[in-house]
């Protein structure tokens, strides 16, 4: 399906925003500006954007510890996210979440998650709510090749089938569960086959290619909105960064990071595809690049000087106090 020019520009802008957001965080974290553990999404942008460009604010997503890309793709405010990651009180979750727990319910973004495998059951619940509401919303569970080995994920796959819920299980296979290879940790080596074993259709695609991810997801969303129950998508992708920032990545092969950045960069692939097909101009893409860089710069500048949380705010939003 040919996307209109505006949709192409928006998809590119979203992917570029995620990339620059993560590249900049990588730099700022190395400077010691940001506390806590941060898991960067760079390299996987085509998945988040390919998925979320098929959704509206009325659809739900449940994310992972590597959640920044899902947040941006689902429409979370970039400046609010940056403030959150800097732990500022004007952040999306008032500085209580940090990188690992960003949520924005106005956008159907039900939260990043620090527990591997915790997301899929939550997505089943959101899918149940969507089915009961009967307005055609769908629920997305983002899981990695690590989470596909958790019992919670198996239970969620099964229950979504049993209850025939509009849930799409999106498996982002970046080949690493933390510091261990999927070829070791995923028995059978076939992530999608896990979902198939529970009786749902599985569509596989290239998670380093926006167009492929988008098409696979379009089919999955159509299936779900039509009331056919759950479906699963496995997108093969690459993690450009370590498991967390500070990970020395000694498990990588020689030249592996250079090679995946050279050969499997979804932004490069997008650019060459739309330029060769004459769908967008170099100038239009460059302009998006400049605007994105300016947005990230503003976000970091704002986050750096954002007001810090006050000690008494520890006790806000608590419904039982002692």
């Amino acid at each position, binding site marked *: 399906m040919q996307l209109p020019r505006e949709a192409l520009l928006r998809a590119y802008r979203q992917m570029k925003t995620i990339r620059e957001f993560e590249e900049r965080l990588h730099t700022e974290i190395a400077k010691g500006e940001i506390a806590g553990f941060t898991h960067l999404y760079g390299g996987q942008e085509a998945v988040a954007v390919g998925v979320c460009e098929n959704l509206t604010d009325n659809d739900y997503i449940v994310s992972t510890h590597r959640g920044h890309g899902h947040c941006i793709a689902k429409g979370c405010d970039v400046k609010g996210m940056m403030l959150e990651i800097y732990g500022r009180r004007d952040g999306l979750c008032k500085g209580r979440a940090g990188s690992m727990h960003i949520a924005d319910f106005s956008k159907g973004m039900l939260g990043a998650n620090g527990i591997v495998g915790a997301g899929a059951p939550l997505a089943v619940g959101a899918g149940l709510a969507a089915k009961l509401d009967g307005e055609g919303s769908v629920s997305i569970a983002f899981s990695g090749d690590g989470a596909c080995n*958790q*019992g919670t994920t198996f239970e969620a796959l099964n229950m979504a089938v049993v209850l025939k819920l509009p849930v799409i299980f999106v498996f982002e296979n970046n080949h690493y569960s933390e510091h261990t290879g999927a070829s070791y940790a995923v028995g059978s080596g076939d992530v999608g086959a896990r979902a198939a074993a529970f009786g749902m259709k599985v569509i596989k695609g290239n998670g380093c290619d926006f167009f492929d991810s988008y098409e696979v997801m379009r089919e999955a969303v159509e299936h779900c909105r039509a009331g056919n129950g759950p479906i699963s998508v496995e997108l093969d992708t690459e993690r450009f960064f370590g498991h967390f920032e500070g990970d020395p990545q000694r498990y990588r092969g020689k030249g592996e990071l250079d090679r995946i950045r050279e050969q499997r960069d979804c932004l490069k692939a997008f650019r060459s595809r739309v330029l060769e097909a004459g769908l967008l101009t170099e100038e239009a893409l460059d302009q998006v690049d400049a605007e994105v860089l300016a947005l990230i710069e503003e976000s970091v500048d704002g986050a750096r000087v954002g007001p810090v949380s006050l000690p008494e705010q520890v006790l806000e939003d608590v419904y039982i106090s002692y």
Partner: protein
Amino acid sequence: MAQLTIREVINQVLHAEMERDSNLIMLGEDIVGGAGTAGGQEAIGGIWGTSTGLYDKFGAGRVIDTPISEATIIGTAAGAALAGKRAIAEIMFADFVGVCMDQIYNQVAKFRYMFGGHSTCPIVIRMAYGAGLNAAAQHSQAVYPLFTSIPGIKVVMPTTAADAKGLLTQAIRDDDPVIFLEGKMLYGVKGEVPDGEYLLPFGQARLAREGSDVSIVTCGQMVMFAEAAADAMAKDGISCDVIDIRTSSPMDEEAILDSVENTGRLVVVDESPPRCSLATDIAGLVASRAFSSLKAPIEMVTAPHTPIPFARELERAYLPNPTSIEAAARRTLGYR
């Protein structure tokens, strides 16, 4: 005596015990790291650096990297133990026990008693706990009250390098399940460690500071804050007992009672939230068994009844600290 960090001590004990007992196995997520990657095995040695070198020495049969599957990590350790092995299971962050609580709570802890005393379950479940790294709500919790409340498991949390050696060795040789808690802020703590074989029995508190005015009873990551508070007060001529309980199950009740009988004042410091905590547990013990010794109400310095927030300022406000501990101690002294 060697000067070692707690991280180094844990690694040395694991090496020594794996060497000593060929029936002992280890398993967990990324305890080796790099399985199925181009970089190859032994890429990580545990994200806390505690299992370095074990895979090279003892091989994949005994040093086992697992998929991310906490419930089955504990189940595998426990099942192997029922079938005659001894096992050390690692849960990377203590918070992840949420995923495997059934295996601990309903399985491991029940075996010996429920099966009529016919089985033991010699496993150690190691896990990194505690706040201080701004790791937010799901990677920072001090989970010891959960485990302390469960009959059938022992709960251990060393705060010095020497204690780490004695207690981990004891835990591994113990025939019953032990939760061995490693403070994230304590891995780098350095201290003198006895050479050779060194075991510390469970249920013996450590007197970290000796004094006669106030008893400060605490454990884990809060011990260093209690010591700092005691040292600050010492400058004003106030002397405190600082009791590091070291193991919360079994707990050295006599050491706590003896101290309070001597000082008449008790401050309990606990990194976990206040309800059903070690703080309330110890306060209850003293109130019921040393009531007549008390010269002032018991003070409890705990985290608030909230999840753990991310931001530096918020986490700092969440945790007890030397200032809040000192203030509590001074309140007991100023009573009436």
